[in-house]
């Protein structure tokens, strides 16, 4: 039991970071195309199953794995050259280690739902977010290319300017929550202010939330702060001289950093794994309400999704047998999944629940809530990329030093005053 419960959050961490990457690439492409009134990649299939194009990502992964490992002849220090992407990736990956995916679960012991059982919380995130930069600088330097080094310089200058504001925004949040641990932050956000408003970070600290989200974009090198990459000026960026899996590591690191930042945003500002008005304890105490609520929510969500599949999975212009078959199979699959889970819940509703069962159910619920919020933030990340124009380099520095930094300081001052008084 103990081993399993220790491994579970680690498995979750791998799921949320590594296993999510192909899905994220798929989401990025499809959302981009939807924004631009296109369809995006939807042709790749396995025996006619396209799954809306997810298969394309699998094909891309295959391609990257089987690509030739190529080392440019001008790279002098091959060790550093290989270490650099690993640092970027490991730093991004480890950011996930302190994210609580759900509240602590009480079985025979109390088990936390974060991969590393430490209370460093947000400090760990800040430390590793800064560490990833070393990999980028190293990559630029080791690849012995002017584009690489220029990109690395840009990335480090940007990171430097934004890390300060990010740190100050985080300090304001730490003062508000009175703790650096994520679990405490989530518990704080389960309260309400004035009896009706959920005390989410974004509600009580909108300025800090804004600063943190902006700096998180800069931190992950995503648009509109993607000066480190630029086809027109830098060929590609710090990964110009990298190919195959070494490039893929950078690529994946970008997405993992994005997921980690989304997870932190969810945890710090959007109430984490809790729904408003529903703290863990209340969930555990109202089994009937939770069961019925879950059944209704499942029914509605699945129903909408199945309806969407039935109306949208085919294109009217080219309708072939394979697509009709896929639609049929998916419908049957999802309908049976829905019926099965509803039957399970109904069974427990009739027979009654035990505390252990409820603990697991609440865990599953909180995981789903976390996932939903997490995906909402990721969709926001992706939409921002297709909405906002890239900043010029001087605009980035201006925004960082003249606007965000004073704002963050002011916010910190006000927060401290309010908390102290």
């Amino acid at each position, binding site marked *: 039991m103990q081993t399993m419960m220790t491994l579970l959050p680690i498995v979750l961490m791998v799921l949320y970071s590594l296993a999510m990457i192909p899905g994220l690439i798929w989401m990025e492409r499809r959302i981009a195309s939807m924004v631009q009134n296109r369809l995006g990649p939807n042709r790749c299939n396995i025996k006619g199953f396209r799954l809306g194009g997810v298969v394309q990502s699998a094909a891309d992964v295959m391609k990257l794995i089987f690509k030739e490992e190529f080392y440019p002849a001008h790279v002098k220090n091959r060790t550093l050259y290989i270490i650099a992407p690993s640092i970027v990736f490991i730093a991004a990956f480890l950011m996930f280690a302190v994210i609580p995916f759900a509240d602590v679960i009480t079985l025979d012991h109390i088990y936390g739902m974060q991969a590393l059982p430490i209370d460093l919380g947000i400090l760990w995130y800040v430390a590793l977010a800064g560490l990833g930069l070393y990999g980028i600088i190293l990559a630029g330097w080791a690849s012995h290319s002017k584009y690489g080094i220029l990109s690395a310089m840009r990335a480090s200058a940007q990171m430097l300017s934004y890390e300060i504001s990010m740190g100050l925004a985080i300090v304001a949040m730490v003062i508000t929550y009175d703790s650096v641990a994520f679990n405490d932050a989530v518990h704080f956000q389960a309260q309400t202010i004035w009896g009706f408003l959920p005390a989410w970070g974004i509600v009580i600290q909108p300025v800090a939330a804004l600063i943190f989200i902006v700096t998180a974009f800069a931190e992950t090198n995503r648009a509109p702060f993607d000066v480190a990459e630029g086809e027109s000026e830098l060929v590609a960026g710090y990964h110009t001289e990298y190919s195959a899996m070494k490039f893929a590591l950078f690529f994946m690191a970008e997405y993992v950093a994005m997921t980690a930042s989304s997870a932190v945003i969810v945890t710090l500002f959007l109430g984490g794994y809790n729904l408003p008005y529903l703290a863990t304890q209340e969930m555990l105490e109202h089994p009937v309400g939770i069961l019925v609520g879950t059944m209704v929510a499942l029914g509605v969500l699945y129903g909408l999704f199945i309806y969407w599949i039935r109306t949208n999975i085919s294109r009217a212009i080219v309708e072939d047998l394979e697509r009709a078959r896929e639609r049929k199979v998916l419908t049957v699959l999802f309908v049976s999944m829905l019926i099965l889970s509803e039957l399970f819940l109904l069974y427990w509703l009739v027979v009654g629940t035990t505390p252990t069962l409820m603990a697991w159910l609440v865990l599953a619920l909180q995981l789903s809530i976390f996932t939903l919020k997490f995906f909402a933030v990721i969709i926001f990340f992706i939409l*921002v990329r297709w909405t906002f124009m890239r900043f010029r380099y001087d605009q980035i520095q201006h925004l960082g030093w003249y606007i965000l930094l004073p704002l963050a300081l002011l916010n910190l001052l006000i927060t401290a005053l309010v908390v102290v008084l």
Partner: protein
Amino acid sequence: MSTHIVPRHGKSFKERWYLSALWVGFRTTFGHFWRNILNTNAIDVLEYPEVMPNDITARYRGHHRLTHRDDGSIACVACFMCATNCPAQCITIEAQARIDGIDEKEPRRFEIDLLECIFCGYCVEACPCDAIRMDTNIFSMVGNARSDFIRTKEQLLATQGAYAPTHSQAKGAHT
């Protein structure tokens, strides 16, 4: 003389505030995203391999071809204008004397490397004899080896134009 004063934007507080502009942009992209995801069938795209585009304009620069004279022989006089003008330097011509009395010179070898070609159309502009054209509307060129993309004289001559007339329209150059 009247002066037209162009209004400068970006100075008012609302514009400098920036977040409201971002919000408007965000509303636009999300609006498109939401509308399209609710009904993907309404997105107006071409199902490309099954449905071919039918709106290629006459000015489209596609695959090259070499035109013929009215008697069916090659119109090119191997003057090297196109090869000289080609920014990608992908046209290889070898000239030979023409012995059938129709003209003085003709290419023995006329090859275009499509992998290097940037489809700028300068070769067409340069040709004094209307001997090379890009009016084929062929935009998809595939092959399994690099050598597949080197089009020879025979292939270029055999390629059909998408519009009539297909023969060289040069006046005065060939007489």
